[in-house]
């Protein structure tokens, strides 16, 4: 296996590790840091793939990823939790070991799901597609287990990272125009959610999603 292929596998392993760390992380501030690291690894991964395959558009993509996911979005999220005064909030997560076990099962499932696709792929990165799908599923799991608004949104952003990684694994990334559009959507989404968090807190006095279970079919 060539050096670049090994580096790519290392990046993929790091991403998976970060995804598991996010699943078990209880402090919101640390979650944001983990998200930023995920962005750094994604950008580095793009540079390595770009260097080893000669696909120059991956450099731009790496630059965009780094600027958006490693700097801008974590900065916005950080500002948000400072202004919402939840910087040191610790979430009580029930049963972290059980969640991790479910996570491991999801990774196995993801590799099975990716097998037929990665066999068709001719890319140097095809072995990492399973990890990409695993990150998507782990982010889903994170969104399901979280009861607070900000961690749930970070889960959502991690989900988008997983999809981004899937695109680079299977095809060396989407066309740049599409990638730009997706980045714009993510940025606008986070800005809108920033406004929205303040509305949530105004209405419920907290960002705990347990208050949001009023709209049910039965009591209508």
């Amino acid at each position, binding site marked *: 296996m060539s050096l670049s292929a090994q580096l790519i596998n290392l990046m993929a392993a790091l991403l998976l590790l970060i995804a598991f760390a996010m699943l078990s992380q209880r402090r919101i501030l640390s979650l944001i840091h983990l998200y930023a690291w995920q962005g750094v690894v994604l950008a580095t991964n793009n540079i390595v793939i770009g260097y080893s395959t000669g*696909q120059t*558009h991956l450099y731009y993509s790496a630059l965009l990823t780094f600027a958006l996911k490693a700097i801008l979005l974590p900065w916005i999220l950080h500002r948000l939790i400072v202004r919402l005064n939840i910087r040191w909030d610790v979430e009580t997560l029930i049963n972290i070991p059980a969640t991790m076990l479910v996570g491991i099962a999801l990774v196995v499932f993801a590799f099975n799901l990716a097998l*037929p*696709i990665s066999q*068709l*792929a*001719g890319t140097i990165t095809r072995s990492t597609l399973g990890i990409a799908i695993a990150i*998507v599923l782990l982010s*889903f799991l994170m*969104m399901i287990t979280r009861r607070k*608004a900000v961690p*749930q949104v970070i889960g*959502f952003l991690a*989900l*988008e990272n997983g*999809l981004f990684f*899937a*695109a680079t694994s*299977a*095809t*060396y990334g*989407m*066309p740049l*125009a*599409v990638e730009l*559009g*997706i980045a*714009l*959507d993510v940025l*606008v*989404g986070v800005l*809108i*959610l920033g*406004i*929205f968090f303040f*509305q*949530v807190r*105004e*209405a*419920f006095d907290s960002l705990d*999603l347990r*208050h*949001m*279970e*009023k*709209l049910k*079919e039965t009591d*209508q």
Partner: protein
Amino acid sequence: MTEILFLLGLPLAGCVVLLIFGAHPRAAVLNVAFSLAAFVAAGFLTTRVVEVGSLLAADELFFVDSFNVFLVALTAFVAFTTALFSRPYMMNERTHGRVTAMMMRLYHGMYQLFIFTMLLALLANNMGVLWVAMEAATLSTVLLVSLYRTPKSIEAAWKYFILCGVGIAQALFGTILLYFAAEKLLGAGGTALLWTHLNAVKGELEPTVLSLAFVFLLVGYGTKVGLVPLHNWLPDAHAEGPTPMSAVLSGLLLNVALYAVVRCKVLVEGALGNNFAGNLMMGFGLLSVVIAAFFLSRQRDVKRMFAYSSIEHMGLMTFAFGMGGAVATFAGLLHMTVHSLTKSAIFFVVGHAVQKTGSQVMDDIRGLVVTNPTIGWGLMLGSLAILGIPPFGVFASEFLILTTAMQQQPWATPILLVALGVAFAAIFARVQSMVFGETTAKRLPHAPALLPVFLHLAIVLMLGLYIPPYLAEWYRQAAQLIG
């Protein structure tokens, strides 16, 4: 090209202008003006396409054929009439003190942005841009659903954001898989996601990847169509947001999401050569019709009830497109048109009725004909139209769908008939007690705009009695394209 430039540029300019001046008392007029201008541009584009056939513009970035041009015209039209309705409606809300000047600015800006994203999604040739536009449509409406800042509306907006966001993320994965399959044939870079190029080589696309891609695309865009069991956001978003929003969500967003599904289905069907995509759509469609019909009778909130009715009708359309074939597709397209017009008309009337009584609970709404006969009769006629009573257009399209189902999928016909019957009983009983009876409702401070209601219902009535030959030809062409 100029038409497309104006069609997309006007709402975008409108968004910027209204985000700045949206709080001005005359901003609603400006909103109408921008929507009217976009509608005129859509008219020009339509005549152009009717004259010269399908066209590609801006380095193949935009693609217009008879299928999407009819949706463009419909979208621009409903956007315009909804802007007409929203002017007195939002003025009443302002007088009642439910919205502030800041909220009006947000409302008007986001309204135009939403129209822009809808038109972009329809015109985009690139499947990636289509995805970006659909996601942007969710983002532009999240803050509108939570406009009133009540706990319930915020909960509805959160649910809307999370469910549609996660849903649409699946569609992104589907798009990645589509690109993965196409890249082998078309090469990496720009052209591999262009629908026209994909359509040209669809027979050679890798079937296993495409069938997997379609599952993700259907689940993803299907969340936005409101297909059961992915529909949970829809009744809440419709019930808690301002009524013009409910009208455009039901009348436009659901249609455009279904458009995305149908575009994907054309590719997948060509690649697979079997009925996998169609069967999947029929299954989801039928489930939506049945579940929504049974949920209808349990509703007590009037906007929620009509939201469930939208799920039911979207299910019916998905079923029709899933069946495929010229007649079913024709019926599906016709149903798209008449449902969009009728449902938005109903929401216009319901909006004013709710403002008069100050409650969305149907037990509180009584005797609409007594205080305002036009609102009362508007609701009655609109409901009769949506329930498929002849001679309205919904009857024609439902009749076509049912008769085709009898020939192609006989097993589904009784299920559909029972569901439609249940829906009829649920809605008709409720509407009757709302329209007739005693009332204590007050007059509205600003006279309601009822022209759009009767304009929509008149078109639906006309489509039931007589479809002009050029329109029929247009539907036929579109049906042929989709197959």
